[in-house]
């Protein structure tokens, strides 16, 4: 299963990508929301999206809104990666259509937990978490 990691920081993309790879995902990356939408169109099927919240250009919230506006992306699970300082924004992100949020710093178990919440099984088979 493919997972799309959206973050303007290459370091964060690598960190999230490492965990997702370990969980058995094939990881594709995008540096911002606009590019993420392009990847969704080109590299489908994407099984799950992990998107940063604070990004230049199109931020996480705008990305979620844009993705949900397109019928073909409406059901792709989107998990917003955020930090405690952005907690106030979580409600609006979920309202905009994100399925879950993941708080930095996270562990692999935390990712697996979120995936399990969305009833996404690990591509390896076996239950997550």
């Amino acid at each position, binding site marked *: 299963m493919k997972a799309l990691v959206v973050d*303007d*920081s*290459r*370091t*964060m993309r*690598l*960190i999230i990508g*490492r965990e997702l790879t370990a969980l058995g995902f094939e990881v594709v990356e995008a540096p911002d929301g606009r590019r993420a939408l392009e990847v969704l169109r080109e590299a489908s099927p994407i099984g799950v999206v992990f998107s940063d919240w*604070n*990004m*230049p250009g199109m931020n996480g919230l705008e990305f979620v809104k844009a993705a949900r506006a397109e019928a073909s992306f409406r059901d792709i699970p989107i998990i917003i990666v955020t*930090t*405690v*300082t952005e907690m106030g924004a979580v409600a609006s992100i979920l309202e905009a259509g994100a399925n879950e949020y993941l708080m*930095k*710093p996270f562990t692999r178990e935390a990712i697996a937990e979120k995936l399990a919440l969305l009833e996404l099984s690990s591509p390896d088979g076996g239950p997550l978490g």
Partner: protein
Amino acid sequence: MEDRLDEIAEAFLIETREILGKLDNHLLALEKDPASPDLLSEVFRAVHTVKGSCSFLGFSKLEAVAHAGEDLLARLRAGERAMDPDAADALLGMVDAIRAVLAGIESSGQEPPEDHSALVSRLKRLAASDPVPPVREARAAGAEVREAAETTVRVAVGLLDGLMNRVGELVLTRNRFLAEAAGREESPFWPIVQSLDAITAELQQETLKTRMQPVDTLWKRFPRTVRDLAVTCGKRVELDLEGGGTELDRTVIEAIKDPLTHIVRNAVDHGIEAPELRAARGKPAAGRLLLRASHAGGQVRIEIADDGAGLDLERIRSRAAGSGLVPAERAAAMGERELLELVFLPGFSTSDEVTTVSGRGVGMDVVRSRLKSIGGSVELDTRLGKGTTVRMQIPLTVAIIPAFIAACRGQRFAISRKDILELVRPGRDGSRAAIENLGGTPVCRLRGRLLPLVFLDRELGLAGAEAAAASGSETVVVLAPGERRFGLVVDEVLGAEEIVVRSLSGRVRDIPVYSGSTLMGDGSVVLILDADGLARKSRLDAGEAVREGALSAEAEDSQEETGSLYLLARAPDDGRMAIDLGVVERLEHFERNAVERVGGLAVVKYDHEILPLVEVSDVLVERRRKPRGVEGVQRAEGNIHSAVCRCRGRRVGVVVDRILDILADPLSVRRPPSREGVSFTAVMGDRVVEILDVERIVSMADPDPFSVPGAARGGGE
């Protein structure tokens, strides 16, 4: 995985450096256009990105700096605080600090030890809008780091541990040297020994320094731990970490990890109240937890302070009296200090009532004993309704060694594990590890090999509780300090423990069988046995033994059946010879200057007798020139090793170059004698061993060695 981690760290360094390049310019632009929302957002996001990655990479110092900067920027961005020269200055200081830490990470792979807590608190104060005078130290520290970074190298921890162990061994060797040299100030070796002593001490100090790590390595676990705990307990907690640059020996850091975690958990779980309760008590909804490390008088002090409920001393008092831990009238008279001490009592903490109502207590006894074991201490201060502060005092460095704790005659002793080969329960009568008596020397037969024994109670003159043999639990601790090997008989081995070595002082220091002392968890002092010193004290020089491992292994492989036992010795030309132990009474060494010449024969005073000495090598090798072997004996350097043999009803000391081992009849293939004085030869490994005919050698050395007036007779006394 490792590659991937390095790749991430690499990406982080590149990305952060790019960000820093932009930040400088953005901040300068901000000073001119302080209200620009675009610039503020950009700067905020940049710092936010750095902070976000730090927490994954374990760069807690960087994270702390970026976090504080982010807080200030958030206030600026929200328009809650105006950008002014102070703020700009602090933010530029933050950029410098980040850059300095980055340079350190780049060169050493980890954060440099410099402390940025002054900068962090300055940023925090600015975020809180309190005007403060500018602080420049952060930038000065940054400049230092960049210089230091170029002169550091990365060293594997395993290598440092190895180095530390070698230094430990060097110290012990030095100690032996000092013991030998004592009282010989006029010797030409004296100044050399003195400088060896001084250099060893310095080396030990400096090696200890290489193992220092910043407390940050501990701090970095806590943001996550506290956050998770707070979520689990339904609390809101703000964690502040200070003094992360304070350095401690890594063994100490390891040792305090668990106690510290325990205290932090207690603080979040029991100390800090739920948000609603806090609000009801007029406190901010989020509790504050502060971890602070600092140097204090050659020690490190760690404080864990919360602004939670505090401990209810009256509850502790009634609880102590109620549970019978303390007599009621005593409890009634107790002051605050004494009451707080009760929290550290084992058993006291088990009460749910106390822990849930008034704060903490769970397992504080464990925390204290753990800290004691590394030579530290812990105490607490509390104010009801205001919070609790736990203070830990920790030594900068300690030498922690794995050890076994043994009991003998009701006393406990520690034995360093590095000296211990194995533990053997001796059996009785013919079983494999039965204790036997060999010509006055107790031995234990272990896998076909004889192990000389030292009875700890006899050696130390212990009396009191029942003797070892009576209890049936006696244990032979097989020790191999350096290259000799022997069995130490103790009443019981209680278990393994990591102990902290404390040096001995005063009179005890001069007793060679102790290498130090250690404080047990229960507060009692236990002496650490010096295996080498014990071996020397009990004159086990015979057991030079293990050095000749190949020979011994050969012996084990050959027949294990009982037969004659042989004393294996080395000749001056490195040849091997053996003496049937049947004629050997004891192994002794004498000081060279104790040897006297009486009537052309070398003799030595022994057991109130005069013992004639016969040097085998002289008799065998240089017989024609020195038929009496006298010159040889007097020429020998250092101690003279001899087997005291019974010969024609009398004692004679057969002098050899060095006694190597006791072998259980390894001489399965006998060959004809090589020369006079030899009964037969045998091959062991690639060496020929000559088995001596002691009686013949004695008569070769002197037709009548017992002609000396007053020479030993009978030898039975």
